[in-house]
């Protein structure tokens, strides 16, 4: 890796991993690169395999090698796997390798790994397909879900997992999310964080999560949020966002997410804030031809003032006029735009994702 990559810890401006095999059932591309999976001295190997070879050769015991290599199927590195779809992709890689030899600059911007195999129970990772397949049958978190239940509905369960209790699980989860989130800088120091992971109530596979920094100076109620790609478009993001605000309501805080937000997070939050504001204006106390302040709205909605202004701008219902004599500016909220934004942004302001009867925050 370059010196620049070391300075921007974990960040890369290109995808260094082409695809991810997520458990047994899903294979998809990544959105962003992640250099943390690799060691700075070797981009051809995963970091832990490199370290184990150099520092302790007995760690990868012989009997594990026997298990992995005794299969009649492919026992080589993932580049040469027999998946038919990958054959096409291998040709592409060969041609690209020829071009790599010519130019040294392009070498660093090619894929470091063709397929990363990730367990969808515990997020442990490997470049060897057989290791994953053997691991999936004996994964510890397959039958014993980590964390304490904080929300239990007939459909979904949310568990709170403390970073210092399930350290490796949280570290692997953080590294995995870097493939889909641009601004993430903390991967291994997870002691300060709490992870709220959502499962199907009868299921054992994590569908998504959000993390919360216990030592946040601004007391943010959310640090980062991700719904894993196979489970998106189910309303799980809204569920987690609402749940995070329930936690801050329980703690008596007016709080919000840590910035900057990712593109998906920005849209999800703008919709959620708009929904909360619409609910207060249309169904509650705020009447027409009255005045208000951002502090009043914040007190009712439990949102930060800056988030409220952003939501009002998103809905297009914040207007201003300048008085040339005084040099002052007056602001207005137009309720007609609130009604129309419910339709245009598909807000469904009366729909509630988190029901109080299923919350287990007080105990």
């Amino acid at each position, binding site marked *: 890796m370059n010196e620049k990559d070391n300075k921007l810890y974990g960040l890369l401006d290109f995808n260094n991993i082409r695809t991810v095999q997520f458990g047994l059932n899903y294979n998809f591309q990544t959105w962003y690169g992640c250099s943390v999976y690799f060691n700075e001295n070797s981009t051809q190997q995963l970091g*832990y395999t490199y370290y184990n070879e150099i520092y302790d050769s007995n760690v990868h015991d012989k009997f594990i090698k026997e298990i992995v290599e005794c299969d009649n199927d492919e026992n080589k590195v993932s580049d040469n796997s027999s998946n038919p779809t990958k054959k096409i992709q291998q040709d592409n890689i060969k041609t690209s390798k020829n071009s790599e030899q010519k130019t040294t600059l392009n070498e660093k911007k090619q894929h470091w790994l063709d397929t990363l195999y990730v367990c969808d129970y515990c997020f442990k990772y490997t470049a060897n397909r057989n290791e994953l397949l053997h691991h999936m049958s004996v994964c510890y978190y397959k039958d014993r879900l980590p964390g*304490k239940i904080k*929300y239990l509905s007939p459909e979904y369960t949310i568990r709170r997992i403390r970073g210092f209790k399930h350290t490796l699980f949280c570290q692997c989860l953080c590294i995995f999310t870097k493939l889909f989130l641009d601004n993430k800088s903390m991967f291994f120091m997870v002691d300060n964080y709490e992870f709220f992971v959502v499962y199907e109530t009868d299921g054992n596979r994590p569908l998504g999560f959000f993390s919360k920094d216990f030592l946040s*100076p601004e007391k943010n109620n959310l640090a980062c949020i991700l719904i894993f790609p196979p489970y998106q478009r189910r309303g799980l993001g809204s569920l987690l966002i609402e749940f995070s605000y329930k936690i801050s309501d329980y703690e008596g805080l007016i709080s919000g997410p840590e910035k900057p937000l990712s*593109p998906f997070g920005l849209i999800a939050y703008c919709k959620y804030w708009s929904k909360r504001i619409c609910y207060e204006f249309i169904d509650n106390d705020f009447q027409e031809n009255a005045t208000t302040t*951002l502090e009043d709205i914040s007190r009712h909605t439990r949102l930060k003032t800056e988030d409220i202004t952003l939501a009002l701008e998103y809905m297009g219902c914040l207007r201003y006029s300048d008085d040339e004599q005084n040099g002052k500016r007056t602001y207005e909220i137009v309720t007609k735009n609130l009604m129309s934004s419910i339709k245009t942004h598909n807000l469904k302001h009366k729909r509630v994702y988190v029901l109080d009867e299923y919350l287990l925050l007080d105990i």
Partner: protein
Amino acid sequence: MTENDSLLHKKILTNDKEFTSKPKDNKTNATDTVNFSADSNNIQQNDKELCHLAHKDENNIQILVARKKRNGRGKGNYKKNAIKKELTKEISQDYTYLDTQMVKEHKIEPSNSSKKENNGNTSNDNNRDNNNPNEFFIFDYDSKELKPTTIIKILFISKNKIVPFPTDLINKIKTLENMKMTITHTYLKEKCNTKGIDPLYDERFHLFHNSLMKTEKKMLHKDKVNAQELVEKLQDILDTLNLEVWREYIPSITLMKDPNDEEELETKRTLTIKAIERLMEVSADVKKRTKILKIRQGYESFIRITKFINPEDTFIYNQFEDKDFIYGYSSSSDEEEDGLKTANEIRKHRRAKLATKFSKPTIVIDGQYFKIVAEPFNKPKRIVTFPIETQSRVYNPED
């Protein structure tokens, strides 16, 4: 400051491109816009002033480029963005841990009103720039900004201008169009090994993960050290503002329109004291929460902390954010609740566990039309009971 330099400043601020002065050295200038006098004595002063002015006015970055090229510092083409980053680094070097708080509350970039004043009163600004490098509290907000306390009218229709959604965020949302992903369904099968050995056992990852954890710890430690230094600085500033001679020091701490105006001095003194106290509270709160975290991790015992809550006290009949402060409290383990299927069952199980441990009853105080119910680890509730109605309604004390 020579006369030429003062004129120079005026012209820089008004972006007068016709201004030229003959350079005393025979060095060539890199840009066509402005030429400088090259007194070696005034170079350092001028550079500081230029840095500060360039930070104020983006157009003056060209001037900074000219200066740097002429003096032979650095190579290659300086770009605006690169220079901006350097300037912001100089300013934001000191506060990394609490810098977001500072930037939001105090707005280190000067407001538009200060630019108008600079055209009229260059001498005062120059004195301020030269003598007061530590100034970082600014309370002169733009009057047109939407503050939390500005009164907003609520109307059904309006023909006034819309406050637009920020363009940065619009561009961010547009990037979603390119973020398409194809998810292929694969039908892989697990491979059972007779020995039941996990090839991805935990120890395999420990070496690598621990080494990177150390690098992250170092990064966090640096932030903590910077934050502590900032807290000490703020404490010193607080002490100076509480002296009798505070009037002499406050112009170097906060931005003052008129240092001789006593009303302004007193109001800004109170504002800076409040701002500093707020920041100190934030740092104290973070320290408290680190202690709580250490208790949870088992690094500190309850007894060392003086302010732990005795379960014999009535404080137990309260809602606690952090029950870890309570002597003898332990969170229920993950495996105890595996067989429980509904939220109510889990709630009963957890309450029963706490009741057996702390053995405190629920207190019920009867009234004519209401009851007060106090349960351990919960807020007390008031239940309204009517003699005719059979159902009871629960009111929260906050309503």
